[in-house]
């Protein structure tokens, strides 16, 4: 088990991120895990004095998750990455690449997600 991991609702994420910043935590990264049941676990990792604190947010695939890049600018890259590779619907990212930070138009929509790829939906593939 991960130490210092707290399950929170997506509504609380902004509040906890703000609170972490006030308390002197730095943003480390976020991890998206596709649970295979139509939901994602998104873990936000913060660090203070080399001790990690982790917030776990469970979101449904179609749900929106508000970016924390307005609080921690350094979250922009990982939030764009999760948005592209998992199809996670993260909104209000400070610099939103619109799905083209890593992927081109010819790529799969969300290659890291556990999903059946319908061949007709793959652009550029006959």
């Amino acid at each position: 088990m991960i130490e210092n991991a707290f399950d929170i609702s997506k509504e609380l994420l902004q509040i906890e991120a703000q609170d972490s910043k006030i308390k002197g935590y730095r943003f480390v990264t976020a991890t998206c895990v596709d649970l295979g049941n139509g939901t994602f676990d998104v873990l936000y990792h913060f660090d203070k004095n080399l001790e990690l604190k982790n917030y776990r947010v469970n979101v449904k695939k179609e749900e929106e998750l508000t970016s924390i890049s307005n609080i921690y600018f350094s979250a922009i890259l990982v939030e764009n990455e999760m948005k592209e590779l998992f199809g996670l619907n993260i909104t209000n990212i400070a610099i939103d690449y619109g799905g083209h930070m890593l992927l081109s138009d010819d790529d799969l929509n969300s290659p890291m997600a556990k999903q059946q790829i319908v061949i007709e939906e793959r652009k550029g593939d006959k």
Partner: protein
Amino acid sequence: MGKTVIPFGPQHPVLPEPVHLKLVMEDEVIVEAIPAIGYVHRGLEKLTETKEFTQNVYIVERICGICSVMHAQAYCQGIENLMNIQVPDRARYLRVIWAELHRIHSHLLWLGLLADAFGFESLFMQIWRNREKVMDIMEETAGGRVIISVNTVGGTRRDMTPEALRKVIAVSEEIKEDMMKLEKVFMADYTVKHRLVGVGVLDKNTAYEFGAVGPMARGSGISQDFRTTGYAAYGELDFEPVIEKDGDCYARTLVRLREIYQSVDLINQAIGKIPEGEISVPVKGFPNGEVISRVEQPRGEVLYYLKGNGTKNLDRLRVRTPTFANIPTLLKMLPGSQLADVPVLILTIDPCISCTER
């Protein structure tokens, strides 16, 4: 004044790997920088889901050549933690020795590239000549020059003979002596200082707020080095994080220079204390549950998130590499800088794009 957009990269003489920056300029001064990555994305995290957890060591080693040992170390330590595997003491020390050799090789590579970036070709040549000695000793002790593949879940795959350990000490001391001569050029040469001092200043608070790691953070006065937590055998060795306070390109260069000496010292300490015994233990069962493993790479702290499901395959392997954490600080440093300083500024974060994109 009108603004001009200048594309920097993805192919540029100063960049060993492709990264693109869209630089919004006012005259010669940068007002905004927007990065674009994705040129060498390989989907390695996804690939690990299709391989056995023991095979993943070979994949994570190939995330990046320059810190391949530490990638494997972070992964193995995570799996060992998940499976409650006690690694033999000798393996813990061997991991430190090879990791510090890799740190020396990485910092020498970077110092050479920096010298090349500001046009000091003979300095570049001298530093890389030194680097060859590390590459040779890695080949002698592990059979490979870059991806030496010594770590395995449960310990190490290779041991070092007493003769090899003595040679590692001799070679690392030789490198230290050579670098002490070359250090004078970095510290005192007018041209070098002119290109580095006061350029790309990142103050301590900003570095912390933007999540800087490794020499980027330590060059801004943040005393943060994950080795101080004592993983592997670091807890039994005596060292302090190398810190500089000015936060400019010069400070980051000095941190890396002094970390070479620190690595030589750590190698000497580790070889002095390495116990006899086994180098690995058998691994039974499969990983189950979640774990986070962190290791200090040459560029800063790497984070591995591992999730096992009780089978031979992992559910998820996620890597946050140091360059991924340092790119936002680069975006903070670039506005206000001169266009001519961009190559040196990019280099001082020691970017590893293959790490960043995995």
